[in-house]
């Protein structure tokens, strides 16, 4: 009787050990997959964030919050959904950043300080020198994309660069598919005109 109990105890103990080991391996494997996914996306996500928030430190904050939120909330979702989910979080964080900036600016600058407010906005725009520098280094297209209105810029980044579908782009930007197509048409037209080939 004692021997039978002992064997049962050993078997259950062994099984628990195996379960624990399997769980650890699953966690490790998931972490590896997450690491690989984020490594492929981090530069592109940083580029998108920097284009929108302009300041490097702000772009870093946005990326940090995006990665944290993604790993916390969506790591157990199917991997083929990771990319649209990641960029949706990124876009939400960028929007949050703009909202915070607006409320912060509204708080500290009353209507009397409109000149200071204008100066603050101007400081966030790329300087003419940096635009010239970008153009000189062969990145004329980047300079043109930066000049596009916000929604058109986002559509170009997600649809053309990240190769998202119209529906995925609409979901990321939280607008309709029709609006995505409209913004995309206008953005492409502007870029073509700026590059001197409007008939293409």
């Amino acid at each position, binding site marked *: 009787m004692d021997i039978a109990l002992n064997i049962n105890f050993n078997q259950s103990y062994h099984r628990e050990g195996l379960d624990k080991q399997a769980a650890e391996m699953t966690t490790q494997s998931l972490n590896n997959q997450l690491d690989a996914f984020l490594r492929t996306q*981090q*530069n592109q996500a940083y580029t998108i964030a920097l284009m929108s928030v302009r300041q490097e430190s702000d772009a870093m904050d946005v990326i940090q919050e995006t*990665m944290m939120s993604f790993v916390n909330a969506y790591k157990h979702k199917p991997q083929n959904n990771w990319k649209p989910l990641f960029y949706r979080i990124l876009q939400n964080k960028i929007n949050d950043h703009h909202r915070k900036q607006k409320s912060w600016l509204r708080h500290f600058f009353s209507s009397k300080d409109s000149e200071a407010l204008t100066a603050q906005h101007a400081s966030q725009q790329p300087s003419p020198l940096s635009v010239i520098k970008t153009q000189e280094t062969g990145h004329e297209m980047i300079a043109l994309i930066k000049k596009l209105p916000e929604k058109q810029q986002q559509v170009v980044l997600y649809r053309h660069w990240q190769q998202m579908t119209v529906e995925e782009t609409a979901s990321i930007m939280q607008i309709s598919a029709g609006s995505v197509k409209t913004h995309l048409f206008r953005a492409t037209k502007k870029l073509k005109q700026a590059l001197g080939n409007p008939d293409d």
Partner: protein
Amino acid sequence: MTEDPINKQIKQSLDAQADSIDRQTQVKLNELRHAAIKHPQTNQFNRFQWSLVGIAATTVMVISLMLILPKQQTDHIDDSFMFEDLELLANEADTDFYQDIDFLSWLDENQWLESDI
């Protein structure tokens, strides 16, 4: 269906932009990635949770005090009235006195009137 040349140009330019991120920024991005995977929950979130618990506890305390204190006060008032009634009922002489008080005052007034006459 061939890809629009401008789309290709956009993609190539942005790829080049992403690839040209400097070494220092790259190191920082790697650190953020490792931190997100190893310690996904930030302290800020924990602080937020604790502040919620604090607010909830304070609200419960305030509501409890609001419910208990007025009840205790009304209980106290009811008890005092009850004790006054008991005193009156226990002392028969006093109750007679209270019952005849109108008559005595009337008598007193009349006596004064008679003496005046």
